[in-house]
């Protein structure tokens, strides 16, 4: 950009033009590694299980990153997290869909078996519900959908992301045989993000909300 004195807000888009493509490519990189692992035999003796686990973990990680964007923006005042929130969310949804597709193929598309799993195994029920909740969010991720729904309703709808990611973490917790530390770490991060959002949204009475330090206590005067 060589314009003499653009305002910062207008200048920002061009300077960060690389950001969304970079997040997209970086977010899809694990697919390439997964395919290469599968072809080279690096997925080990039970490749389907490894691929299922990894796509599930990628879903959780990307959804958590997506949910971290707004708290990060509010706490730091940075604007770039807002630009990649949608991309991270859609990548998470893509991995969730891939995770489910692998599960379907693994069960030979046997609908009797799959229906029984979804209805009777809380572990599968939680994961399946999380995926279903992500579908409307993915479908309304365009600016047009925001306009059509109105910002307030769109925001309320997208709060479902918290429900979905929590169910995802529960699905992970229930799916693990014994070592519950990794799923509990995800649950703790999700809880922390939720808490930050809550404190920013409902600060202490009389608190000036324009402050970017959101924890409420900062501006007690």
């Amino acid at each position, binding site marked *: *950009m*060589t314009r003499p004195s*653009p305002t*910062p807000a207008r*200048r*920002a888009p061009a*300077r960060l033009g*690389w*950001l969304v*493509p*970079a*997040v997209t*490519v*970086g*977010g899809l*990189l*694990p697919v390439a*590694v997964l395919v290469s*692992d599968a072809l*080279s*035999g*690096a*997925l*080990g*003796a*039970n*490749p*389907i*299980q*490894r691929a299922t*686990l*990894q796509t599930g*973990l*990628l879903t959780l*990680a*990307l959804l958590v990153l997506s949910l971290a964007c*707004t708290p990060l*923006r*509010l706490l730091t*005042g*940075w*604007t770039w997290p*807002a630009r990649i929130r949608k991309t991270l969310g859609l990548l998470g949804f893509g991995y969730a869909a891939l995770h489910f597709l692998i599960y379907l193929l*693994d*069960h*030979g598309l046997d609908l009797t*078996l799959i229906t*029984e*799993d979804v209805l*009777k*195994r809380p*572990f*599968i029920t939680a994961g399946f519900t999380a995926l279903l909740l992500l579908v409307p969010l993915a479908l309304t991720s365009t600016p047009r959908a925001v306009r059509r729904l109105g*910002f307030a309703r769109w925001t309320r709808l997208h709060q479902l992301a918290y429900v979905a990611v929590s169910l995802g973490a529960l699905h992970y917790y*229930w*799916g693990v*045989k*014994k*070592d519950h530390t990794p799923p509990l770490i995800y649950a703790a991060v999700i809880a922390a993000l939720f808490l930050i959002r809550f404190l920013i949204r409902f600060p202490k009475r009389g608190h000036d909300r324009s402050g*970017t330090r959101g924890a409420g206590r900062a501006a007690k005067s």
Partner: protein
Amino acid sequence: MTDPRTPEDQTQPTDPQTPDGQRRILTPGSDLNPRREFLRSAAMFTGTVAALGGGLEVLTRRPGLSGAEAQAADPFSRADRPPGPYDTTEKVTPYQQATTYNNFYEFGTDKSDPARLAGSLKTRPWTVRIDGEVRKAQTIDIDTLQSWFPLEDRIYRMRCVEGWSMVMPWLGFPLAALIRRLEPTGKAKYVQFTALLDTKQFPGQKQQVLRWPYVEGLRLDEALHPLSFMAVGLHGRTLPGQNGAPLRLVVPWKYGFKNIKSVVRITLTEKQPQTTWALAAPQEYGFYANVNPAVPHPRWSQATERRIGELGRRKTLPFNGYADEVAALYRGMDLRKNF
């Protein structure tokens, strides 16, 4: 939701990084030439791709083992020996897979931990303490114990409670032969097995994922069944550490976790032993743990399994396909309650 305030707003008037005062706006790159702007964007792009992609890989990738052993030919060949009465004719799981995909929490909870860390396990010298309701209580060296019996091959199916299975060519001796030699007293009703407790050799025991040492058990009639087996070898070789060297139990009609590894003590008891997984999660793992497609694990189905090396899943068989041999042991028992 968008906050119009940016860091630039707050820092625009003066730029602390340029004391000469010529550049007044903190927008590195904006007033540089397009080529440098492009290079800067390219560098940021690459850095972000590497950071996000690399970060996700670190968080989620769990590569299996596929090292030099992958190329090693299977040491065991079916053609070398006549088939035994209890052998399955199914395709044997290759040595590489049978020795790199293991549940052995004493080394760690990942399936590749045992193969990576089994080097720390010293299987000689090794003694097995035999006590409880037996007339021949003793502590015996593993080599002496092995010399008591002619070694046999047994090609058994192995079904893990997690929903995968293998076909394992074991080498060892029938458990019944050992127990008879020990002369159980009239009070003996159960056999309890205890694995080694040693955090130096078993680094996974530093974590209290399970209550250590690992303990398993069988009813005496189960232990005396001709299918029950003590393995000291696999694929015609000495048992590798990750598969439970130097001595492990193999009860092919039960879920894999019953097959306790690296046994140091065998106790005949009057009361039913408190077994490790049944203590860890009593609603999920019972004492019997017979393979049963009709009784789901509370969290997942047991109707199907993946045979390691195959992509699809196959139906799980009652008693892991050994119903003809062992179903009579459980006549009159409710197997939904005694899971």
